[in-house]
């Protein structure tokens, strides 16, 4: 499909990071964030991991990881199947933002279909502490035409 970005991929998260740059005023209203998020995608072809480091009002780094052990020591992990990520992204694109049942908190709260984990509870708590900003980051998917890995 023309003009689409593959999910999951470094390019896809960089596209969200670019939208974050363009939306600095919006992020400033929410407040800065300092955390590292690892996105884990369970695809039929295997597990893929992407790390996004946030500082202030920017995603300062995006990289693909071979394993969670490569992540910054302080991080939390958002884990879900490719189908779940796909549904969340498509819902966000269809509604210009997630509906009531596709927010990050909604999807992670019962530990299914998405889970948030971390090396310790305070790292998991960072996901709660910066939730508005993280939600806004993924809301950026509304503007990223996305293709999905088979």
């Amino acid at each position, binding site marked *: 499909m023309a003009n689409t970005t593959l999910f999951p991929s470094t390019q896809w998260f960089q596209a969200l990071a670019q939208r974050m740059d363009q939306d600095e005023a919006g992020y400033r209203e929410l*407040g800065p964030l300092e955390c590292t998020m690892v996105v884990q995608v369970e695809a039929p072809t295997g597990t893929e991991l992407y790390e996004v480091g946030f500082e202030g009002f920017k995603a300062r780094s995006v990289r693909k990881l071979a394993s969670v052990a490569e992540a910054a020591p302080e991080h939390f992990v958002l884990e879900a199947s490719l189908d779940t990520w796909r549904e969340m992204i498509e819902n966000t694109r269809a509604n210009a933002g997630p509906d*009531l049942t596709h927010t990050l908190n*909604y999807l992670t709260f*019962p530990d299914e279909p998405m889970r948030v984990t971390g090396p*310790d509870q*305070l790292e998991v708590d960072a996901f*709660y*502490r910066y*939730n508005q900003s993280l939600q806004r980051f993924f809301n950026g998917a509304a503007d990223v035409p996305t293709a999905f890995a088979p």
Partner: protein
Amino acid sequence: MSKYPPGKYTPAVEVGLDRMRDMAKGNFDLKWMHANSAGWGHQVTPGPTGLRMRDIETGYYGQVPEHGSTHGSMAPRGCEVPPGTRSLPMYTMNEMSEVWAENAGLLYDEAVVRQWNSITDVPWDKLQKLPDDIERAVCQMCTGLTEVEFVAGDMPAKWLCRINHDFHEVKLFLASQIFDEARHLDVFRKRALANGGGLMMASPGQEELLATILEAPDYTTASALMHIFGEGFVLTLFRQGEFLAPTEVEKAIFRLCMQDEARHVAYGVKHLKYFLERNPDRAEQVHKILDLGEQAIFTLTLEPQTSEPRAILAGGGLANIELGAQRMAFIYAKQVKEYLRRLEIAGLDREPRLTIPKEIPYEDLAA
């Protein structure tokens, strides 16, 4: 004839008038211009998001004394305190380990830039007429949260005025928490009243827990009970509130409150860690207050006005309250698990001492 003849005013005013007479003759003191030479010439580099506390509290000014200053005044840490400055006997918490957390300054910075308000940051225009049972459930949930929220303002307020001014990072953080809690009280009350419903039933179970927090014998045990235990449980309830939210309005409210609550929990965990590293013999006192808290919260969790509205929301209506209760049974286990993990970070192995079940076997009990 002078308008200010000697002897007309009190001695204190006379001293001031003498000083003015001197200044009128060009005699200025200017000693203050040479005060605190060790603290002069401080170099600061703002961070990427602005001038944060950690950017200024460096070097000379970043030295936090293990034992707070004995002058007992409000003089800021790092300034020169002239002899004769009045001591205020109210500052009785003078040990750093009694209050400190390494993240206090960072959390204060975060709190002040992540402020929000219930007037313009909640999309009240998206409120919708809800079915009667759903609106009643939302209003009862908000009544309970309005009741519980301000203990987390009253508790820090009770201790704040006793903390030595050398620990201003902690004082500022606690001040931000008091305002966070004010906002929570405000927004939950507002939601209860905003959609044709109103406040419903108070919770005697909550009052037990709140009393235990307010009556704790010292700040650290109060903090362990409130910041880690109580606010940790409430943080999960806020996450649940977002999960169950029937409209964008409740969704926004709970998401905003969740962030604030997570900051308070983060302070509590780091404070207890700092405290126990220096006072390991006090762990038993913390255990004892948690014993009380656990008993109170178990009663509270199962109190009808706390549990039933959430079951109605989870089931999608009163007709499905049993289904909702089953769906939400995992919440309690999640609360206990996260509570134990936070205490583990603080250095307190609570699991062998836990006085309540780790999960509620809802289906077994129903059978």
